[in-house]
């Protein structure tokens, strides 16, 4: 019985990890590969979720909503890139921090302006509602399995895009020396707009997919932002593989931590305080883990450069 639960929790951890990767995927592209600190990633995630919820409510189809989330987030991304980000590539990273911080404010309040102050309804599509039986007699929600599948597909797709295609090489080249890649005849401005929009679309996709499991509300992107950065940094900036591994590690550690720590503590204190202290420790756990990883490997687990 206990082992069955443990196995289920490990599965949950994996699942949570892949979900984290999905949330971080767009950021991996924009931040890890283009080298742009985009604090507004969470806002794009929110845009995706809201677009999906609104369209799904209007049309009754989750799938149309999903498409809308891609379109809306990509459009928002392209607009941001052309009107703001583009002017900041040759500036200090800090200017990007301030600008994208400002974008968070604008997006959050803008979304509330359009959609009101109350959370929106977004449910998973009927097709994916049930549970899938797993070997060993247990079952797992189909929707979560679908998220795992999408996460892994995105990971593979991104990996191929970045490391195998000429487009990917040019993006990476642009990250280290925009001037030089332009001098070789690559229209890096347009390329970056496209890539930024793609990253935004991925954020939006994650927002829609994960939003169906969570709550679609203003501010939903903020915790995502921090987690996504944590995942990418642990994995090593610029490495898709690293981001995936980092995400799964964080997912496992977080899930198992909040499950096992209170149980372990219950050995030598009363249940109620064990639950409280265990939970407190568990909430610090991923940050402890990140600090440890970076203290030992200052470049993350799989840094793309050397």
């Amino acid at each position, binding site marked *: *019985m206990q082992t*069955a*639960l443990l196995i*289920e*929790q490990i599965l*949950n*951890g994996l*699942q*949570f990890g892949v*979900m984290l990767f999905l949330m971080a995927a767009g950021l991996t592209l924009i931040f890890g590969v283009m080298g742009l600190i985009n604090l507004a990633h969470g806002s794009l995630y929110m845009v995706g979720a809201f677009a999906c919820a609104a369209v799904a409510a209007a049309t009754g189809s989750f799938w149309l909503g999903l498409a809308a989330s891609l379109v809306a987030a990509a459009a928002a991304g392209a607009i941001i890139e052309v009107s703001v980000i583009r002017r900041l590539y040759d500036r200090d990273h800090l200017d990007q921090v301030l600008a994208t911080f400002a974008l968070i404010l604008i997006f*959050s*309040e803008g979304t*509330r302006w359009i959609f009101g*102050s*109350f*959370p*929106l*309804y*977004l*449910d*998973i599509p009927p097709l994916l*509602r049930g*549970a899938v039986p797993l070997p060993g007699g247990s*079952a797992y*929600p189909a*929707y*979560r399995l679908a998220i795992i599948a999408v996460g892994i597909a995105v990971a593979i797709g991104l990996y191929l895009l970045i490391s195998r295609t000429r487009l990917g090489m040019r993006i990476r080249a642009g990250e280290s020396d925009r001037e030089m890649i332009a001098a070789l005849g690559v229209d890096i401005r347009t390329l970056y707009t496209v890539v930024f929009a793609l990253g935004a679309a991925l954020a939006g996709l994650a927002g829609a997919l*994960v939003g*169906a*499991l*969570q*709550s*679609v*509300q*203003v*501010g*939903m992107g903020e*915790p995502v932002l921090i987690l996504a950065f944590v995942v990418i940094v642990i994995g090593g900036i610029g490495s898709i593989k690293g981001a995936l591994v980092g995400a799964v590690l964080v997912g496992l550690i977080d*899930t198992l931590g*909040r*499950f096992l720590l*209170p149980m372990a503590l219950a050995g030598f204190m009363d*249940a*109620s305080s064990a*639950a*409280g202290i*265990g*939970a*407190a420790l*568990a*909430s610090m756990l991923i940050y402890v883990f990140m600090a440890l990883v970076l203290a030992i490997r200052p470049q993350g687990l799989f840094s793309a450069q050397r």
Partner: protein
Amino acid sequence: DPVKVGMITTLSGGGAGLGVDVRDGFMLAIKQSGNTEIEVVTEDDAMKPDLAVQIADKMLQSDKVDILTGIIWSNLAMAVVPNAVNQGTFYLSPNAGPSPLAGANCHANYFNVAWQNDNLHEAAGAYATSSGYKKVFIMAPNYPAGTDALTGFKRFYKGELAGEVYTKLGATDYAAEIAQIRASGADALFFFLPGGMGIAFMKQFAQSGVDLPVVGPAFSFSQDILGAVGDAALGVKNTSQWSKDIDNEANKAFVESFQAEYGRLPSLYASQGFDTANLILAAAAKASVKDKDAFRAALKAAEFTSVRGDFKFGPNHHPIQDIYVREVVKEGDVLTNKIVGVALEDHQDAYASECKM
């Protein structure tokens, strides 16, 4: 005499829904009263304690308000209230009721028009006991209101606990907790997860197929978020001091006029805002706000028609009131709550005795 009210509430970010409801309920009452002597200044605290303190300072020192109100969150209330009431201003809480302000740090100028934080959880505990649950799994986020919630529940729940779990504040994925609930062999689930946490949990819980009766305080099933939870909430029992079907004239009028004014159903937060305003209006009709003692006495008397029916203050200026059990139902295609019973009658909070006032 003119009364100047300063409303500090949350109008931006994820918690804005609650602030908007409190404000709308409040302003509705002011509008209906036709009283032009009452001036309200409203500002957004963005859920930041230090910003709330700054706004309070501004309202006290610059706007010279007589009464402060509006704060939604306990931590913001703890930041603002002690200083405000010590300076002689009245504070009327339309939502938060942290235990220190009900007990050891109670104050003559502080009135709570909603509930002490533990109240609805206590009622849930009482309801769980009366429903005959023997093994309840209880869960709340790991912060003071969360611990208070579980303490409150346990105060009135007499059975065994199948498990006690504190989640991370702001967590959005509950697969791990749901697995624990499934494995615990519980016969019912009690949880307190305010705001988005509750929405996420209920959706995931419903999808997980774990079939347990669910009890909770009204916060995760109030009108403002039921729409977002969807059918997942159907049938859930929740405890509240207010419901839109409480049978009295004032309440009927309130629900109708609120819907007419804002195009949506009121939540319990709106009712609390509405009551708070009516309390002020009633007191202002009896005494001048400049005469602190008289005004305080007028507030304390609470001679207004509450939408919850009977309403009176205990010695610590916290309400003594009935707390109902509601069930989430569907009316047409709108999700809402229906009263199915009374959990606690004339309930008073547990800290009143610590209050030396």
